[in-house]
């Protein structure tokens, strides 16, 4: 005969649910506060000072001077304009190429899985390596790109007009697969019967595309667009490795130079805060969209 357990479930459990919940969540939150939020508070403080990490002089409180200086600096504005151009070109290119690839792959073709995975490889690679070998491809004297396009000695990365776009092209190569991956998921979720109904109604291909395909893929395309915009806005690695042109100086590169080459630590902390607020704003939009797609 089995003995019934008369004790309450709560007493029988070794630890209460609330205890386990706190034990599981609090360390993570603490870790993130110590390694992300605490440094940011630290740098918020320094953004009001004239600290230079290279000098050992006294640190003076300068109030809002750093922020005023940054917002009145035409060079910084230029960095933001360059960054905006970069974001528009590279994200625009990725959306077009990525969605195009997805449309091409969204049918029965042999080795589809293998081809898709191969196409996804660039986005898994380190930007350090991608930057390096695109630099070799762009090389004016023995790069493959000039050779195959017959451009002679055209120097992509040291040409002030071309450098930014050359980096953007590399970014398009690297991240179009991301848009492709999301678009493929959207496309495969479109119910087949909609297309059949459209075919019966003799809808034109264009009509089918704009009225059936696009609206159903749009939520995922928006996710790709927002996420890539945020990432392109933050771009540092590729542009830093590939070009030294001032016309290709993105805001993160400016930030890096200000902090670690000119050692204007206080000023760089202030700029970091301006960038941070912009990134958080985009993150907020992104998370809203993510949650929206999740609920579908």
């Amino acid at each position, binding site marked *: 005969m089995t003995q019934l357990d008369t004790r309450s479930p709560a007493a029988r459990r070794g630890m209460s649910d609330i205890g386990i919940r706190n034990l599981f*969540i609090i360390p993570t939150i603490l870790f993130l506060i110590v390694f992300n939020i605490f440094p940011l508070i630290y740098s918020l403080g320094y953004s009001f000072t004239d600290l230079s*990490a290279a000098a050992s002089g006294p640190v003076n409180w300068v109030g809002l001077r750093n922020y005023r200086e940054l917002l009145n600096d035409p060079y910084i504005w230029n960095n933001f304009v360059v960054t905006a151009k970069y974001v528009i070109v590279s994200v625009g290119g990725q959306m077009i190429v990525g969605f195009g690839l997805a449309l091409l792959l969204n049918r029965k073709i042999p080795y589809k899985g293998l081809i898709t995975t191969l196409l996804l490889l660039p986005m898994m690679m*380190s930007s350090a390596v991608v930057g390096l070998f695109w630099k070799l491809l762009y090389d004016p004297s023995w790069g493959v790109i000039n050779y195959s396009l017959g451009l002679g000695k055209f120097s992509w990365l040291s040409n002030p007009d071309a450098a930014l776009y050359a980096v953007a092209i590399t970014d398009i190569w690297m991240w179009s697969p991301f848009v492709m991956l999301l678009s493929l*998921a959207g496309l495969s979720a479109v119910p087949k019967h909609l297309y059949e109904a459209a075919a019966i109604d003799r809808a034109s291909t264009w009509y089918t595309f704009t009225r059936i395909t696009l609206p159903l893929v749009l939520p995922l395309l928006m996710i790709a667009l927002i*996420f890539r915009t945020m990432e392109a806005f933050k771009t*540092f690695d590729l542009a830093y490795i590939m070009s030294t042109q001032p016309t290709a100086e993105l805001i993160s590169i400016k930030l890096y130079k200000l902090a670690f080459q000119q050692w204007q630590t206080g000023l760089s902390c202030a700029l970091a805060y301006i960038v941070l607020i912009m990134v958080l704003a985009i993150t907020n939009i992104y998370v809203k969209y993510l*949650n929206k797609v*999740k609920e579908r």
Partner: protein
Amino acid sequence: VVGEAIYDGGERVLRTGQSIQLSGYPSRFLNSLIVAITSTVLAVGMGTFTAYAFSRFRVKGEQDLLFFILSTRMLPPIVVAIPMFLMYRAVGMTDTPCRPDHPYTAFNLSFSVWLMKGFMDEIPKEYEEAALVDGYTRLQAFFKIVLPEAATGIAATAVFCFITAWNEYAFALIMTNRNAQTAPPFIPSQVGSGLADWTVIAAGTLLFLLPVAIFTFTLRGHLLRGVTFGAIRK
């Protein structure tokens, strides 16, 4: 002639192998490996527990907390690296191998919480409830029922975290010099160094890319989930 060519090629491969050994690559690979493994283990370990708690228990302000966790992942590396650099210098940790570990663990941690929460949400609650009725404690149910069910998810998350840390460039550039340098800042620096030995650079880069390529193939079913932080499951 063919035999000679093969011999010749073999000898060249051997020679390249030797020059790789003599070059700076092995120590950088080792650093990359240490940093990637440590941060992955920490991030996936903590992330799995946290994801379970978010998935199963009522948490006050859950959406805000999850947003907070994800937002730490979105911070531009340079923005975080400036104060971190100052802090590490204040503590006197200069160029020690564990330096990029902390930022890597932090941003992998927020990623793994989100991704693992997606996996945890998919494990039916009934499994644990049945176990609880059978007399398991909540912790026993978690370790004996939930964790084995989540094994695939944990593995996929770990691979993503490993690749992220393995590939990371900006933090590594700022926070390491010589002793602790990982491969990503080292590889591009080799090209500008005058006497470039192209066979060694090419071979070193290939060795660096190989694990990523293999992992991408093993992950292919989870890539979509990974890049959307677990929001889209296909």
